[in-house]
């Protein structure tokens, strides 16, 4: 019953057509970005003379170099702090049955229910009053704080299933608390750390609303804000715009194609354990 039959072949053809439908937007994105402004080929036809000129122009005029660096700084810092703080917090929260630790855990979980929109306006004021508007530090603080509930939730769930024997052994060998956590517990968390890293990194790199509020109009931009500004500036020059869009999504697409097995697992695993 599970062999390749003519029914499977029909299914295969059908699914390839579905796949082509999914690729269609990407095909348009790439073809348009390779066409010179005066290219006379039809909208959906491949370019007559493919050119990389749009990419060169977009690179020069879009400020993408700085934006890519900023996005990388924000993403790496956010991921590192989220992993360390969330793993550390989840350790006592998942190991203790005390009342305070349960309450604290639920206080973190409550954050999963709060949409960012609720905190948006007051947080904007606070960041502004602290003079952090237009700085990467402000954005990173917002991301790390906002990322805690989900990361702690993932870590705590994983830690509960982790046996305590290794910690006991470390304690007997005389390791102190921090040493035990860092050298014994944290390495054991690697699978769930992978999930946290992937979800946090993709979410941070791709986020638009936060940098739109805190960074737009300043010279500190992330890629998403840079695309927005670039489109605003070059209105209907779609060949140029599409080249800019490709530049801005290329890093994450490359990461995706290189690590796709892990990334897909991270997305599926973050919710399934």
């Amino acid at each position: 019953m599970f062999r390749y039959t003519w029914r499977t072949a029909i299914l295969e053809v059908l699914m390839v057509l579905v796949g082509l439908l999914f690729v269609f937007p990407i095909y348009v994105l790439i073809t348009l970005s390779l066409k010179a402004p005066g290219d006379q080929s039809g909208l959906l036809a491949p370019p007559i003379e493919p050119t990389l000129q749009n990419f060169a122009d977009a690179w020069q005029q879009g400020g993408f170099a700085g934006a890519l660096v900023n996005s990388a700084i924000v993403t790496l810092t956010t991921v590192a702090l989220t992993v360390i703080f969330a793993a550390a917090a989840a350790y006592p929260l998942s190991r203790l049955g005390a009342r305070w630790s349960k309450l604290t855990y639920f206080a973190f979980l409550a954050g999963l229910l709060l949409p960012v929109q609720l905190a948006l306006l007051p947080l904007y004021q606070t960041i502004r009053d602290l003079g952090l508007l237009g700085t990467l530090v402000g954005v990173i603080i917002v991301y790390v704080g906002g990322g805690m509930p989900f990361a702690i939730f993932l870590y705590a769930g994983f830690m509960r299933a982790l046996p305590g024997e290794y910690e006991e052994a470390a304690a007997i060998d005389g390791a102190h608390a921090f040493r035990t956590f860092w050298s014994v517990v944290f390495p054991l968390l690697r699978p769930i750390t992978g999930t946290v890293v992937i979800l946090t990194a993709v979410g941070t790199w791709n986020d638009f609303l936060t940098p739109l509020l805190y960074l737009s109009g300043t010279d500190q931009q992330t890629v998403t804000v840079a695309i927005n500004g670039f489109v605003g500036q070059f209105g209907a020059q779609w060949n140029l715009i599409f080249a800019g869009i490709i530049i801005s999504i290329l890093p994450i697409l490359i990461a995706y194609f290189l690590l796709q097995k892990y990334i897909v697992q991270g997305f599926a695993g973050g919710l399934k354990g």
Partner: protein
Amino acid sequence: MAIAPTVRSLAPRKRRPYRGFAHTVWWFVLPAAAFYVFAVVYPSVRGSLLAFTDWDGISPNPNWVGLDQFGRILTDPNALTGVRNTLLIAFAVTVIQNVAALLIALALNSRIRTRNILRVVIFAPVVITSIAVGFLWQNLFAPAGGINEALETVGLGFLQQNWLGNPDTAIWSVVIVVFWQFVGYSMVIFLAGLQGIPHEVLEAAAIDGAGPIRRFWSVVRPLLAPAITINVMLSLIGGLKLFDQVFVMTKGGPGGATNTISTLIYSNAFTLGRFGFGAALAVMLTIFVAVASIIQYRLLALQER
């Protein structure tokens, strides 16, 4: 929301967990708590309070107006359209995305040879930033854009539309974009669920004479229940909060026809200076999300039993 029960059920549930150091390291929680209180708790509390004021973002002493702002939502046609759109998008995306994702996952869980490449292709939009997706589709949906051109090419020219300019089609165009972007996410969660179903069980059902539909309904569906719950929640909550794609493609237009609660919060607060009204909308969104999450939590608890 779902990992705890799943992990717990995998772990041998035995003696008391080892406490050891854990009780001495309460300060491990401090950095996380500090960031969380600063960026989530404190501003969320203040945001909720703002909803009961008439604050304009500038005046030092906003007036306490009770439930007036919520009353205003119910009488403001623009806000009502936004609420209706939000619920419509959330519902439509949830249904379409999950049905399609399940069908795709079932197809890719078969013996077809292109299954790996198709999985990679269909998941790819998930990692692309929503704003790039929004601009790409804005171009595709343009009157002289790729969609109309493609329809002409395959002989369906009569279906051509000003997709985003026509209030009737604009909202569905948004749904299509969200679907294209996130169906891969639901798909991988379904695939993970399907791969957890032992082949022997399906073979046994087949030997007992169950056809494909019966096998799906009586064997696959119950085993897939946790994945279904998770996917429904993810798409429902994502749909309720939708902002980026609308902000980019239509700015809520034409004539407010595609506003969502999130785009209204943004425009009321940051361009119209109606902070109190924006905050009331945010409280409303929070209630929607909380209700959806609690229902999901209940459903999941039921399944665990």
